[in-house]
């Protein structure tokens, strides 16, 4: 079956938009064809800086036809009804309709509407222009007198069905079979046939159509060049993809810079190379090893960013040209720019080192954090106080936590962070280290921003980062409480201050360190430190706890926990200790997997449902104590005894946070409950007896409530 080939040729498409645009093109075109009855085969989309391309295989030659019968008015109906029918059925005159005899209701008209299938070309000529008008570019523009908008001016449309041009016009451009290759290596127009030839001809014109191939080539060539010089590529998948989006014919080359720049921290060099020049940094494996052997301090050693090893004074650039001089001018030019960039970076580094961090911290007085939440300085003061208080709960020296918090945001006013915001925290750490600050405080300055995302690590107690934990928690709690106080909570559509991320950060730090942290208490303390006036402080703290509960649910669910179990635990009062909640959920889950657990759940549910029905009927509650003297049946007595001992045992176990023990104790209820339902009738004639039995049932609920709210458990 025919193949559809589409190429939209334009001026340079921003690298970051190419992939998504190609996917959208594929989705919308195949969707458009399908909607017109053309169920095509596999489709593939590609993008280069100057083109989007799409190939769809096995496009049916025609869409299937359809036939439909439409019942009309009776013969002799008013003219208006007849006309309406003709219009709806698309008939020219009533003679085109047939008459159906119906003895009962009288004769009526019937139209047979046959829609013949349409040729694929006709459909493509409709669908493609429509898709081009709808393709959702993040930003699009007009050019010349055009009213049509595209990401950058559009210059050509290739649209071929089975090698034949499908004619249409968009933006004053007629579709055809002509395209161009590389801007400098193959800019002369050439004709295109099928997809295979198209790809081949492009390659001959120095264009690699498939971004995956460009990525592969850049990566392979970069490794090869690095290896040749016994260096190691600093991996960066984002940079790789960006370079593939900036080149149609990638050529990787190596350049140098002055070794003296290596005094600057490696992360700074890597960031400068990447953000300004889209170049890759390289590591010198041998140098790192020899320095380490000599016991020398390697720049950035111990950094958690992962750039522990010494960089080489070389870089890799990706050009879009096979230059006639072998690339000498390109390398020289890039080296010149990088020299200027690294001079800037070194200038910032040296200037920043001259200024003590405390002095920078003072300058935070002039930096607004948020219009309604005051300056960064005020925020730092709050975080320092809260860190000091949290320190005790996480085994950090309280004064160290306070000090770390006081310095944590200072680098925001440094020259380097002004230039490279993504280096915040890390620069503060470097500046603190160079001033001889205690290592755990210096590390806390960097680590308090963690975790920066779902895949980032959290500071760990066992790695000696308790100070960082205290500051990281205080920072996030202050953010949450502050934005809650000014009613800037996340909504379904947006979370501009990334409050969900902050809450998840707290949760992960707590859980991954197994911290015992009464969250409610610290939220209230944090709230008391706010300068903003809060209308309902108690409601706010509760609201935030609910928010944490929601985030915890999401987090645990992602890890495979049952959300009904989380609900069952959160339904208990005073659940603000995240680590305990999780332990309880785990123990409960394990218990329900056992025979005893599963049966008990059935028993408890049965008790609850009986209670619900009877309470509704009697319009009363049977909560409360039963009368021991009214218990008759041996199963009744056994159940009562079991309930009393289980209550005590579970409470005792929970008091020492022994949740497995509590579950084991709970298991003791299973047999008495089963026996009770086997032998004892609840709804007996004697109302006193009946009501007493209902109260006994309510005590099953009470006993299990020490562990979880079983009514919220599915099953």
């Amino acid at each position, binding site marked *: 079956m025919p193949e559809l080939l589409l190429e939209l040729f334009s001026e340079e498409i921003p690298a970051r938009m190419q992939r998504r645009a190609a996917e959208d093109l594929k989705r919308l075109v195949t969707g458009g064809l399908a909607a017109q009855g053309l169920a095509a085969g596999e489709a593939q989309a590609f993008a280069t800086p100057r083109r989007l391309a799409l190939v769809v295989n096995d496009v049916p030659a025609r869409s299937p036809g359809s036939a439909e019968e439409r019942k009309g008015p009776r013969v002799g109906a008013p003219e208006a009804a007849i006309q309406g029918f003709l219009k709806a059925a698309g008939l020219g005159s009533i003679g085109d309709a047939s008459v159906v005899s119906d003895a009962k209701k009288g004769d009526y008209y019937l139209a047979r509407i046959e829609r013949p299938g349409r040729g694929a070309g006709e459909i493509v000529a409709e669908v493609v222009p429509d898709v081009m008008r709808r393709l959702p570019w993040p930003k699009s523009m007009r050019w010349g007198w*055009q009213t049509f908008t595209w990401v950058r001016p559009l210059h050509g449309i290739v649209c071929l069905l089975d090698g034949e041009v499908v004619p249409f016009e968009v933006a004053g451009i007629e579709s055809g079979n002509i395209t161009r290759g590389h801007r400098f290596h193959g800019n002369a127009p050439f004709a295109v046939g099928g997809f295979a030839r198209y790809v081949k001809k492009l390659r001959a*014109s120095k264009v690699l159509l498939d971004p995956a191939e460009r990525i592969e080539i850049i990566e392979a060539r970069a490794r090869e060049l690095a290896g040749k010089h016994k260096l190691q590529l600093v991996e960066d998948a984002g940079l790789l993809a960006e370079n593939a989006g900036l080149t149609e014919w990638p050529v990787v080359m190596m350049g140098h810079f002055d070794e003296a720049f290596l005094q600057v921290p490696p992360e700074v060099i890597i960031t400068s190379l990447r953000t300004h020049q889209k170049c890759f940094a390289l590591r010198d494996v041998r140098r790192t090893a020899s320095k380490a052997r000599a016991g020398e301090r390697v720049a950035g050693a111990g950094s958690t960013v992962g750039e522990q090893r010494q960089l080489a004074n070389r870089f890799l650039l990706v050009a879009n040209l096979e230059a006639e001089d072998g690339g000498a001018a390109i390398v020289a030019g890039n080296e010149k*720019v990088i020299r200027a960039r690294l001079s800037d970076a070194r200038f910032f580094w040296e200037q920043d080192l001259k200024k003590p961090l405390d002095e920078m911290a003072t300058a935070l007085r002039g930096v607004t954090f948020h219009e309604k939440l005051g300056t960064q300085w005020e925020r730092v003061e709050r975080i320092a106080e809260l860190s000091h208080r949290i320190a005790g709960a996480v085994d950090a020296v309280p004064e160290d936590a306070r000090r770390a918090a006081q310095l944590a945001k200072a680098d925001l006013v440094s020259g380097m962070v002004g230039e490279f915001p993504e280096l915040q925290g890390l620069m503060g750490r470097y500046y603190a280290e160079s001033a001889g600050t205690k290592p755990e405080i210096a590390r806390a300055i960097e680590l308090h921003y963690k975790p920066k995302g779902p895949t980032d690590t959290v500071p760990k107690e066992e790695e000696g980062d308790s100070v960082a934990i205290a500051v990281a928690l205080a920072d996030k709690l202050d953010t949450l409480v502050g934005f809650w106080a000014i009613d800037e909570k996340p909504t379904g559509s947006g979370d501009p201050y990334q409050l969900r991320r902050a809450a998840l950060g707290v949760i992960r730090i707590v859980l991954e360190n197994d911290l015992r942290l009464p969250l409610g208490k610290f939220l209230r303390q944090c709230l008391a430190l706010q300068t903003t006036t809060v209308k309902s402080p108690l409601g706010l703290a509760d609201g935030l706890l609910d928010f944490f509960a929601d985030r915890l649910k999401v987090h645990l669910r992602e890890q495979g926990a049952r959300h009904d179990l989380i609900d069952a635990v959160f339904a208990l009062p005073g659940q603000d200790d995240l680590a305990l909640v999780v332990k309880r959920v785990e123990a409960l889950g394990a218990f329900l997997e056992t025979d005893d657990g599963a049966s008990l759940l059935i028993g408890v549910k049965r008790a609850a449902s009986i209670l619900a029905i009877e309470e509704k009927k009697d319009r009363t509650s049977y909560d409360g104590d039963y009368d021991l003297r009214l218990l008759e049946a041996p199963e009744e007595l056994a159940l009562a005894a079991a309930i009393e001992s289980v209550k005590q045992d579970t409470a005792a176990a929970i008091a020492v946070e022994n949740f497995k023990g509590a579950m084991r104790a709970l298991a003791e209820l299973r047999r008495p409950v089963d026996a009770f339902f086997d032998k004892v009738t609840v709804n007996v004639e004697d109302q006193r007896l009946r009501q007493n039995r209902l109260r006994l049932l309510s005590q099953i609920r009470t006993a299990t409530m020490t562990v979880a709210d079983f009514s919220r458990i599915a099953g």
Partner: protein
Amino acid sequence: MPTRVAARTASKPRREASSPELRPGRSFQDLILTLQMYWGEQGCAILQPYDMEVGAGTFHPATTLRALGPKPWNAAYVQPSRRPKDGRYGDNPNRLQHYYQFQVIMKPSPPDIVDLYLESLTRIGLSHEIHDIRLVEDDWESPTLGAWGLGWEVWCDGMEVTQFTYFQQVGGFDCNPASGEITYGLERLAMYVQGVDRVFDLDFTGRDDERKLTYGDVFLQAEQEFSRYNFEHASTDILLQHFRDAERECGSLLEKGDAGGRHLMALPAYDQCIKASHIFNLLDARGVISVTERQSYILRVRDLARGCCAAWLKTEGGGA
């Protein structure tokens, strides 16, 4: 490959036809003259700089105002640009508070405007046979002019040499047709083609005799003196008064020039807008404008710009 050969032979004769006596890689002035010659050949009117202090070539009425309205317009010019905050007392090898931009504006943007631009690079010695020329996404926005467009920064071997923009709006009005704007940073470009690392070392005249002159000979003293003025000595009281005066005068001219369907003083009003904008930049360099005030100043200038653009659209030049 035949395509490649064809492309080469097509571009060569044109380059040889360029004036042999100009050596854009040798002197700053020849670079400027080469660009002027080239864009003149493309049908652009070679204008002279606007005679007022502006922050960028875009402020020249030949761009800001002419970008609006339906009339075709093609022009190119050098514009001295003043950025008081960027002064470094002549100590920094790249930073200047006064520098030159070469500005090209073509309305409507011709379909081959990118090719025309690339050819201009070849003319000044940046041949794409050995230089890696790339168009890297960089959209442009001027909050004070209420203007924006999409385009690129043009990289030559990793260095930004030009800003290329398709204007979409100016003064809050749609540009219809859309213009193509090309802004070359002349000093940076000259430093690259001359192989110089410090702007003040640029060869200005391209001579070896006693009339040899560097960029520093011409501008170093000015950089030092104006940095002192911009950062230390400009009287903020006087400047604040000037700002208010320019703002008031602009408003008054917009009002007085309004003759119903026509406007009779769009250009004088726009001069006052330019003045206000530059005074704001000076005040900013003096560090007397706080972060929150900054925004309100920008909005005040933008209101003036918007008013001037609206007035322009009611003039002959604006197509009324």
